[in-house]
């Protein structure tokens, strides 16, 4: 886009800028409904929780650096261990994937001007912020949960965990679950209805298939967790009995409900990473994805099959043989769609002409780490092997390879990849590569020895170990690795932070990207696209005739929605243009609804039932306020 914009086109762009610009200053950010701003808010808030979870991890590793250390008391260790897992999963990896990357990029990739429900989008963010704060109020007041992120009963019941820590855990997760559910609904409706007319499903980027799969998985998985948490709180706060055997309850009920959510959750964690990988690879190897339809199908299948395998987390519980055998078989089936994607990526890299720049390096690292994590995961389907290695460091190794290696590496690669688009500046490539290698080496030094420790019998969640166990050397290596890993991550963020101010200016498309977001400015204007883009394939940016037609349309005012705050809505599969939608602008209601909700949860935690009822009434009023102003009246 180096040609100077002709005057008629420029006038259109100016008018659109005036229509779509949000209120200035802090108030503008507090009342924003712009998906890009909301994505940025999610990004920084998630990173804050990443830092908190990282501090917790370093505390754990420092305590375990040698035998019989007393850096942390057992109580503090158990709190660190519990908040580390809870924070990383619920307040970092899912929000940054769905809320930051998803929110920012989905409308851009489908040629839309915002998400389907912009105010709901803002509400999702404010609820996330309030829920995370809620949990950490507990942590900082000495009431952190300490029964693990999986919170098994009876340990998590009132009798064995009498303090409010578990209530902070349960209520903050119910709270953030609302945010995630709303975000998933928003993503699904956006992907189905707001695609640019002409972008039929087979012309939609793979990134969007991954996010569609994630969102559907969240819709059906989260209620299982919510059920478990509601039952737990009814038991803890109101004396109901669901899990206590003496009163007819069942401890295993918790495990079933938790893992019916928990297993799909791990696919929810990894699918966005798959989506990011499928965006970065074609760009940097300069060829289309091998077996594109198979990859799209595989992304959907992973989400779907993830629902049938939950009891493989429970092989030591004493289930009937037939049950364990079924779940082992089902767990093996999931390997297939993962294998298809893996080999498609690898074949695409081999058959393309790859430029090994920073974003691609992170994806290569991801592929290597994902294979390792996947292989150790497959070993769990060998039930006798699982019954030896479950609850040991072998599991800790496995899931850190897949969650950290396979889910976080693409996020870091994606941060580098889209950094120029979001900020308008390039990051420092040399530091980028260095930060990758530091992190990659640190990851392996930290987590690889854990396989060996687990096979050697070291159980997980132990706050210390004896010098006679022979676990000392490997634990020392792991702790040093953790510090190296922290250094690597720090170098990523220092690079990005410094580049934010000192990086070279980036144009619209510094990498030769394949998807639509690279056709607009860096950063994109508030209205994303002046013209509804013409789309003939999933690689819209590489269809140069289409992009030239867009430029002509801008000049002539064709397919330009400029009568108001508008975007196009289309049919779900074939994307035939169906409606012109009016989008809302700045609104104070989302943060107000979130605050009212916080009041409800806080009063429930404090068991102030009358006050909770008052806050429910306030909540209903704020929700009503949300709907007071209709689009016609804007």
């Amino acid at each position, binding site marked *: 886009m180096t040609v100077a914009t002709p005057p008629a086109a420029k006038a259109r762009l100016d008018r659109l800028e005036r229509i779509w610009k949000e209120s200035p200053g802090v108030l503008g950010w507090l009342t924003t409904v712009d998906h890009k701003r909301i994505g940025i808010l999610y990004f920084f808030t998630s990173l804050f929780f990443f830092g908190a979870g990282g501090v917790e991890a370093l505390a754990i590793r420092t305590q375990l650096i040698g035998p019989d250390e007393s850096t942390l008391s*057992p*109580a503090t260790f158990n709190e660190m261990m519990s908040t580390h897992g809870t924070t990383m999963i619920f307040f970092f990896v899912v929000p940054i994937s769905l809320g930051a990357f998803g929110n920012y990029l989905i409308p851009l990739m489908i040629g839309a001007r915002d998400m389907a429900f912009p105010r709901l989008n803002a509400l999702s963010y404010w609820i996330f912020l309030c829920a995370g704060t809620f949990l950490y109020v507990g942590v900082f007041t000495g009431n952190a949960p300490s029964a693990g992120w999986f919170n*098994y009963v*009876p*340990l998590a019941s009132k009798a*064995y965990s009498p303090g409010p820590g578990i209530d902070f855990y349960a209520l903050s997760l119910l709270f953030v679950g609302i945010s995630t559910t709303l975000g998933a609904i928003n993503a699904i409706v956006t992907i189905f209805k707001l695609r640019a007319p002409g972008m039929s499903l087979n012309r939609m980027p793979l990134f969007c298939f991954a996010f569609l799969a994630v969102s559907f998985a969240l819709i059906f998985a989260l209620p299982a967790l919510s059920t478990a948490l509601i039952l737990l709180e009814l038991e803890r706060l109101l004396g109901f009995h669901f899990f206590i*055997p*003496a009163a007819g309850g*069942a*401890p*295993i009920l918790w495990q079933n409900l938790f893992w019916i959510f928990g297993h799909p959750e791990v696919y929810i964690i990894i699918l966005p990473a798959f989506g990011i990988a499928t965006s970065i690879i074609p760009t940097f190897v300069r060829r289309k994805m*091998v*077996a594109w339809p*198979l990859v799209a199908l595989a992304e959907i299948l992973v989400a779907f099959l993830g629902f049938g395998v939950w009891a493989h987390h429970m092989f*030591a*519980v*004493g289930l009937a*043989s037939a049950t*364990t*055998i079924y779940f*082992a*078989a089902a767990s093996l089936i999931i*390997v*297939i769609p993962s*294998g*298809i994607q*893996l*080999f*498609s990526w*690898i*074949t695409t*890299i*081999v*058959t*393309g*002409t*790859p*430029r*090994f720049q920073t974003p691609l390096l992170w994806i290569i690292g991801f*592929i*290597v780490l994902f*294979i*390792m994590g996947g292989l*150790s995961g*497959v*070993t769990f*389907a*060998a*039930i*006798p*092997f699982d*019954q*030896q290695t479950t*609850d040991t460091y072998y599991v800790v190794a496995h899931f850190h390879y897949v969650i950290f290696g396979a889910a976080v590496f693409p996020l870091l690669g994606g941060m580098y990849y889209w950094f120029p688009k979001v900020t308008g500046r390039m990051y420092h490539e040399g530091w980028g590569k260095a930060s990758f290698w530091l992190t990659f080496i640190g990851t392996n030094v930290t987590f690889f020895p854990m396989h060996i420790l687990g096979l050697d019998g070291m*159980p997980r*969640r*132990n*706050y*210390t*170990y004896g010098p006679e166990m022979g676990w000392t050397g490997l634990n020392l290596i792991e702790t040093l690795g953790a510090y190296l890993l922290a250094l690597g991550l720090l170098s990523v963020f220092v690079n990005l932070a410094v580049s934010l101010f000192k990086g070279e200016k980036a144009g619209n498309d510094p990498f030769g990207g394949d998807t639509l977001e690279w056709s607009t400015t860096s950063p994109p204007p508030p209205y994303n696209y002046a013209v509804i883009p013409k789309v003939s394939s999933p690689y819209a940016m590489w269809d140069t005739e289409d992009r030239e037609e867009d430029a002509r349309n801008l000049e002539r005012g064709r397919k330009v929605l400029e009568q108001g705050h508008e975007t196009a809505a289309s049919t779900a599969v074939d994307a035939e243009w169906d409606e012109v939608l009016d989008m809302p602008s700045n609104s104070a209601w989302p943060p107000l609804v979130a605050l009212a909700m916080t009041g409800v949860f806080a009063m429930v935690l404090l068991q102030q039932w009358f006050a909770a009822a008052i806050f429910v009434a306030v909540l209903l009023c704020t929700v009503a306020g949300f709907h007071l102003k209709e689009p016609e009246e804007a």
Partner: protein
Amino acid sequence: MLGVASIVFLGAVAMLVVGWVRRDRPGLPFLGENEKANTILVVLFGMAIPIVILVALFVISDLVLLPETDAPAAGSTAMTITVTGHQWFWQVRYEGKDAETANEIHIPVRTPVNLQVRSADVIHSFWVPELNRKIDTIPGQTNAIELYAERAGVYRGQCAEFCGLQHAHMAFRVYAEPKARFEAWLANLRKPAREPTTPLARQGRRAFMRDGCAACHTISGTEAEGTVGPNLTHLAGRETLAADTIPDTPEYLFRWIQNPQAIKPGVKMPGLGLGPAKFHAIVAYLTGLK
């Protein structure tokens, strides 16, 4: 499994290396740019070969091997032991023999034993890595596995399900011994506690019964019938204390009863603050309980 996994991993890494080496040439080595070949590769390596490997893995481990780890059928073994997990120790009962101990299991070598596991409070997991798989102890139900040692020796076990503050210090030992030695040990276990033989030990027994210990511990043949803590009837015959946390010597025993929280913070045993003289007496009594 390690072999197959290594082959898969190295194979994939090799392909990535090929990608790096051939980074300026599009297409596959030898086959060139051929979308059909690419797709066949993906289906072959991503679907066909994995299916074969996975089916083999499934058949071998879950259909052939798995039944060997099953719990023994009821009544098929000569001996049944019930182990109950507590926060943070293991209660061990020999069924039908009126014999109980804690944190130690003795079994005759090369004899299958039906091990039933239960829980008195939260979920624990019974695990002797060298002998068998893990089995969770779940309140409200009884699980079972087979305990069988081919060779005589001492096997360490530990709790393998997070159970609270001192989950890390909830280990135990399994002694597999020749049948004669086992029978002798069991016979001794069935006997009530030995009488104290010295004045200090007698003083210790009085303190034990009156100053709080008896509220939580059982010493069979005395008025101590508490069930909160481990059975101490033959404490001096054991090799470790506090669930294999410290050795069972008079020095450690003194340190333990004087201040359990210093050794195992959070443990449910309080420091009773009885003063060194009384503690020495109690130690003298307990070290006589062989």
